[in-house]
């Protein structure tokens, strides 16, 4: 009997808590409405501030985020936006839960960097139902979901793949070349877009380039080195004339794998994307033939500015603004220029 009471106690407590809390929720709803009116009345005298949630899949735990977040925060401080930043660590389920929290907090807007492109539809639907505008940063939504957001700012991830392929095609000319391709993390929308951009352009512009094998990595140099080494073993070092890497860290790993075989990386056609602290010196040294500039600070800053444009009505309701980061090709000719100095 006592055991039954002990077992039932938590369930009874939870049920009671739910009843009390639903009462609190109703009360809160009324309070919020009242508070809302007060805020509206006072906006004529005081500069308006906005509450915005930024649902990111990374932060200070990754090199890109380390420079992205401060730029985003600096722009927010300038524009009078109170940012609440989350980091789902590329876990789609966690980001979905964070989105539910954000919608419940009823902010003025949500900036979304999708952790998993395919999994954000429920989040977008919930935000729309709550009347909260959503803008997207860094990795755009799939076409079917774009109507649920008010804009995108960030790199043209497909275009980056195109640019990297154009560097490769220009270097190769008409010579038949076999290459291996190292992509980003499986399922990641940036990795998929870059892959599509590169392969489509190679097929169209330089069909003499044959992709012997392509494999995924986790964006890190260490994994890329291991994967590239296995691919070189599988295909034979003599059959490979070049490498496409989805970003500079991956390229650095692939170059290390080549050099560990006693060959000179400069003798191979190698292109990537990022122009990072790791990639830019490789371009200057000649090991990496070309990369594509991506500015983390531009990305973070413009994510905030785009949301501000939505909140202030600069972007009219029903419109969707797309703001692409300039994708500058970085090769030996301009790698040391100040305007393409690496940021991350």
């Amino acid at each position, binding site marked *: 009997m006592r055991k039954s009471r002990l077992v039932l106690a938590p369930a009874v407590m939870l049920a009671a808590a739910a009843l009390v809390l639903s009462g*609190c929720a109703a009360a809160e709803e009324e309070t919020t409405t009242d508070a809302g009116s007060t805020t509206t009345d006072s906006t004529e005298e005081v500069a308006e501030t906005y509450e915005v949630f930024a649902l990111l899949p990374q932060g200070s735990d990754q090199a890109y985020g380390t420079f992205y977040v401060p730029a985003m925060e600096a722009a927010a401080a300038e524009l009078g936006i109170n940012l609440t930043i989350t980091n789902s660590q590329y876990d789609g389920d966690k980001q979905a839960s*964070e989105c*539910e929290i954000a919608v419940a907090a009823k902010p003025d807007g949500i900036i979304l960097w999708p952790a998993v*492109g395919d*999994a954000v539809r*429920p989040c977008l639907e919930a935000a729309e139902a709550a009347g909260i505008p959503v803008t997207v940063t860094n990795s755009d939504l799939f076409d079917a979901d774009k109507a649920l957001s008010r804009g995108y700012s960030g790199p043209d991830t497909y275009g980056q793949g195109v640019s990297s392929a154009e560097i490769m095609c220009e270097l190769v000319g008409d010579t038949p070349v076999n290459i291996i391709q190292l992509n980003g*993390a499986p399922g990641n929308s940036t990795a998929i877009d870059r892959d599509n951009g590169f392969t489509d352009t190679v097929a169209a512009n330089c069909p003499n380039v044959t992709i012997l094998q392509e494999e995924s990595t986790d964006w890190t140099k260490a994994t890329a080195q291991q994967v590239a080494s296995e691919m070189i073993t599988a295909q034979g070092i003599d059959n490979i004339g070049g490498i496409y890497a989805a970003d500079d860290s991956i390229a650095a790993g692939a170059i290390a794998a080549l050099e560990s075989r006693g060959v000179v990386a400069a003798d191979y056609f190698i292109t990537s994307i990022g122009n990072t602290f790791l990639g830019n010196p490789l371009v200057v040294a000649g090991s990496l033939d070309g990369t594509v500039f991506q500015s983390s600070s531009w990305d973070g800053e413009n994510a905030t500015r785009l949301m501000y444009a939505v909140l202030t009505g600069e972007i009219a309701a029903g419109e969707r603004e797309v703001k692409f980061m300039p994708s500058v090709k970085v090769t030996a000719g301009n790698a040391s220029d100040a305007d393409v100095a690496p940021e991350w």
Partner: protein
Amino acid sequence: MTNQTVIKVGSTATGFWGKFRTVLARRTEGRAIVLFAIIATFVTVSQPLVFTAYQVTLGRIALIGLVALGLTAVILMGELDLSVASTLAVSGVIAVTVANQTNMAIGVLAALAAGVVVSLINAFFVAIVGINSFIATLGMLFALRGMAFVISDEAPVKLENTDLGIAFGQPLLGPLTPRILIFFLIFIAIQIFVSRVKAGREFLAVGGNRQAAYDAGIPVKRRIFTGFIISGVVAAIAGIINAVERTSADPTSGSTVLLASFAAAIIGGNYLKGGKGSIVGTLIGAASLGMLQVALTISGVQIPIQEIFIGGILLIAVITDPSSLRAVWGSLSTTFQGIKNSLAK
């Protein structure tokens, strides 16, 4: 045999406080309740939205707690199941892939079957072959993760019936979504099994003293199979819920689930060595963790700081265990006695 920890608390207690102390001493959830109260107070003061938007908080608790409930069945026997995170991923991918080709019901059945098969393999290696469960399920963790990538062709699998997925995420009973309702139903089912059904009650005996359990005629191997099946099937259910609710099955799904599940079980007073613990404790642990995570997320606290909070609570949960406290007290007494003796000389 009961599911409560039996600790000798001296002679029969009388009076309210005596009985209260006896109950506290017998339960492993005492520390979990205290931690829960502290966290609830902290959250009430710092982020009342956690309570006003309680359906969101319950959703987070269900997200963390579902896998933890299944995992507890294995932990009570002194075993570990590290493969739950990958089981979650692969079952989600199977559910959506099969559902896209047939219908959702067949997809769900296929995913549940996958969960059962995975658990049987795990249990076979642990109970029959005799491999340590940490190692056996670690191997399965990697194998299933790879399988999820192979089946999904290394990309998220979109649920074609998107409307079904969106509807599944909507409240079904009052403010409660199907995820929350399923979570509570599974909690009740496992709790009844572990506390009321003979086979379930024997989990603690298997974890407490395996040789004694053998000697007492308990079918230990069969119990291990049962525990792993509960763990695997619950992880598969979590995978199906995640995939349907997000309208997409991600092969990388569940990357943060494993540690959160273990944290919920430990905060709930479950001993990783087995023999002590309860499903109620895991529920309280998941509730504490879920509330804290929602509060920290609303506050915009970054992941490293969140990890410090959660790590701190885990440490408190571990070091406030009565046996740990007794060990610390014993060690301190010996040290002070040694110092006292030295000074006396």
